[in-house]
């Protein structure tokens, strides 16, 4: 009841503010060409009849009563609710994923390239475009792609994260995981996962040196994605 009393004065003031604007709208300029009245009356009779709308095509079999989430995943993983492998989870590992040929063929290609199209020429073109885009992104940071310095930066980053986590369960000594935990999990889970099929494990090995980060990733995986095979 008290809440209603609070809202009604606001509504009243809102109604007051709209009135003057409706008065000012009536003074907008007249268009320089106006359809003659008989033509307007004739056109006003149309449409003479409106038919029911056409059915949508079969491919549009989407459940519109709920929200839909579009993610990168396989059919089995989607059925069991396993984590997805969206490229945005792996965008900071640009070099390890896209520009290391062994990893590109074993990890990126089967997940991102092969499902798009069945034609080999198209697949080759998309692979090339993807690798070029990754190289361009890396070149934005520095004039040349220096692999060693990239890995040194990554190791420093893992060290910093490991220090920040310390002995806590979740970052910032929280009881439950927050947005930061989820972001870190998105990187570490896919890097450490065996089923992803990493061939060149340099980046994963650098991460595995920090036990607390590995345990953090397993903790979240067990709590939220339990009873499932890892991605």
């Amino acid at each position, binding site marked *: 009841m008290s809440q209603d009393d609070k809202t009604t004065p606001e509504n009243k003031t809102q109604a007051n503010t709209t009135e003057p604007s409706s008065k000012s709208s009536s003074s907008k300029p007249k268009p320089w060409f106006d359809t003659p009245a008989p033509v307007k009356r004739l056109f006003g009779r149309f449409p003479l009849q409106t038919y029911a709308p*056409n059915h*949508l*095509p*079969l*491919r549009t079999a989407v459940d519109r009563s709920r929200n839909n989430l579009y993610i990168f995943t396989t059919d089995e993983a989607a059925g069991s609710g396993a984590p997805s492998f969206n490229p945005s989870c792996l965008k900071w590992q640009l070099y390890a994923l896209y520009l290391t040929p062994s990893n590109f063929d074993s990890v990126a290609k089967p997940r991102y390239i092969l499902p798009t199209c069945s034609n080999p020429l198209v697949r080759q073109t998309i692979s090339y475009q993807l690798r070029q885009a990754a190289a361009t992104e890396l070149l934005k940071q520095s004039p040349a792609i220096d692999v060693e310095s990239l890995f040194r930066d990554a190791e420093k980053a893992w060290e910093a994260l490991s220090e920040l986590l310390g002995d806590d369960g979740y970052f910032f000594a929280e009881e439950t995981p927050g947005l930061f935990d989820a972001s870190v999990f998105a990187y570490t889970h896919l890097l450490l996962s065996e089923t992803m099929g990493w061939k060149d494990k340099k980046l994963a090995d650098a991460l595995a040196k920090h036990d607390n980060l590995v345990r953090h990733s397993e903790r979240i995986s067990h709590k939220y994605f339990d009873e499932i095979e890892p991605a």
Partner: protein
Amino acid sequence: MASSGAPDETIFETLRKGVDPQLQEEKLREAAARQHAVQVKEQRRLAELIDSNSSLPCTISSIRVLNAPHTRKTFLSRIFDPIITANKERPYTLAEAIREVSIGADKLHRYDIFHQPISLFIDRPSKTDPSSTPTDIDIYLSVREKSRLLLKTGTDVGNAEGSAYGNLLLRNIFGGAESLNLNASLGTRTRSSYQAAFEAPIPSATPGDLRAEIGGLASSTQNAFASHEEVLKGAWTKTRWISNSGTRHELSYSGTWRQITGLGSSASPTVRGDAGDSFKSSITHTYINDRRDNALLPTRGYFTKTLLELAGWGPLQGDVAFAKTELQTQGAIPIPLPGVQGDSGVSLSTGFRAGLLYPLSLGFDFDSKPTPSRINDRFQLGGPADVRGFRLSGLGPRDGADSVGGDLYAAGSANLLFPIPRVGVDRPFRFQAFVNGGGYSL
């Protein structure tokens, strides 16, 4: 003109006065009439000459094509050799010889490498030439080659878009009527389009022209009616057969990579579901029979076009599989007005078009479910080119604000064209009263 006084002054006076314009006109008219009479007499004499000698038996000793430096001899001999070899077996009459050679000249004209008209000359070889017989004749074809490079640039406004284009045509590249056509255009709706096509005639024994074409296309079109941008990259090979009367059959294989990208922020779930890449590998047959007197403003005749496309079935593979068929017909008749002699300029034209897209199972997997159609392949109806009175792709199934297209459609129209009173019948301007409609069915 004559006047009294000193003769020198009269001459100068008359010269200064100038020639009487009316007199000059009459003189010119008389001269033209004389010229015309001479020409008519010449033509009549030539016709009489040919007529009186039409049954003269003759053997063609040589056919020469003059002024064609860039055309290959082998190419020309392919057209005219059959005439000479047929002649070796039995002598032609003069009329037959002229007819056969003019059929060859007509074929030459259809290759579009020579200007019209191609002139034909007949002569007797020199009597002192030992290899000639008394019945021998020499035939000369005088041609004028069209320029081998044609560059056209321009702007196009119409069909709800504006565009600028550049077109480069290289004719008769290797001397055998091969042509290379390069086209680039940028526009408001078709953002960019680049096309290259190489065409060459294939020697064939059938009456009519057989041509082969190979080409490629890269284009990007903004489809605002469905909130996306479609990028196409493809290549094709075509075999074309054009009969002497102008009927065309085309059989082609094409592979196209289509991308639906650049989705608008409010794109519907149907368009989002179709977004991404798809590869279409298809065989198409097209039949065109155009008997209208003018394609843009037809007043008499009819036009028929059918299209049959099979994609993704069996060995074709690809990502989409369907059978598509489309029919387009148009007919026009002039309407004579009771008080007006000759062409009244009023004409009635009707048109009908229909299309069907039938999804099939992909590849060799004949038992699997057919792949449902995608927005790239469905038909779009509505707009100034097909059903007027509707926005571009304004008819049909709609998901939110997006027009997603349909699998089966039909549309018809009837137009009555009147000439504009002051402007007249000869100018290509008309008032048009039209009635048209169309719809989808599923």
